[in-house]
């Protein structure tokens, strides 16, 4: 009985404070899915400025990046949120992969170390997210340990999720494969780089935020 009362009050207080603050929207996913490109697209569309650097080399984002008070509008509706771009989540990080694209050994090892810390930080931050956007590369097989672990955990935590199938401008893109892999969530196909289907993405954000 006491635990029921305790649960009720903790939920009541949580809800009370939740309504007062802006939504915290996290961008999660494996490296090179296009999280920062999407963050830049959102920031460029609504703030007129970019958020972070993008690169074809994996693990470019190795620290949490936050952009506060992004206000988006569509069809008379308005949504304000803090956007949190997170480092790509991976199970293996190998400096040799960075050396293959021309990085010197010392720098590659440092990058690997920072990327590892970035994964730990990204996972730690998950508890603070109100909604999560999973950004996946639609040209790749979605059935990976990283994708399944992230999505499985979000489902267990009951955090609202939207899956973005990014890079639909590429020939190999396959949104249906992602939809089939995670049928419990809405999937929006976009090209964050070129802004293709961005409107549909923003519409989906309104639905997600309720």
């Amino acid at each position, binding site marked *: 009985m006491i635990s029921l009362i305790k649960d009720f009050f903790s939920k009541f207080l949580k809800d009370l404070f939740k309504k007062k603050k802006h939504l915290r929207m996290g961008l999660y996913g494996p490296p090179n899915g296009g999280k920062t490109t999407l963050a830049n697209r959102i920031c460029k569309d609504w703030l007129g400025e970019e958020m972070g650097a993008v690169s074809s080399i994996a693990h470019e984002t190795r620290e949490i990046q936050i952009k506060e008070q992004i206000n988006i509008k569509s069809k008379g509706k308005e949504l304000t949120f803090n956007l949190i771009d997170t480092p790509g989540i991976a199970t293996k990080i*190998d400096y040799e992969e960075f050396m293959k694209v021309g990085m010197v050994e010392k720098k590659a090892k440092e990058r690997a170390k920072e990327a590892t810390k970035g994964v730990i930080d990204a996972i730690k931050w998950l508890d603070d997210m109100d909604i999560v956007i999973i950004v996946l590369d639609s040209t790749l097989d979605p059935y990976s*340990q990283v994708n399944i672990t992230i999505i499985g955990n979000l489902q267990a935590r009951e955090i609202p999720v939207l899956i973005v199938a990014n890079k639909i401008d590429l020939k190999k893109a396959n949104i249906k494969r992602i939809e089939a892999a995670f049928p419990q969530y809405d999937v929006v196909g976009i090209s964050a780089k070129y802004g293709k289907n961005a409107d549909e993405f923003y519409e989906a954000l309104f639905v997600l935020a309720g």
Partner: protein
Amino acid sequence: MYADGSTDLLKGCACGAKLFFFIRKEKLEEQQKLAESIKLSQEEKIQMEQDVLGMLTSRMDYDAPVVLDLEAVRVLRPGQYELDLVHLFQGQPLIYRLEEGKYVIDLAESFQQLRKNV
């Protein structure tokens, strides 16, 4: 390698296994000669490794699931890491394995996580 009639064949080897691979003496000598005749430089060995790995669909198997023991992060060597995502997502103590029998535990982080879970 164990000689014919070795008692180890009955008792088992140092690792405890009792399954042995049999190779004829002539074949063994033949293989040893062949191995000795091929002297490879370090560059050649690296090139061979790269060639074979290049033939594989994926080099380091990034898709293979990583399930570690009690640690969340395993350092294979400088710049190479394996992360147990399930371990990290569950908020279990943050333990790094540097090598066999050498661990570092992030106590501050682990206690913070414990407080969160209570």
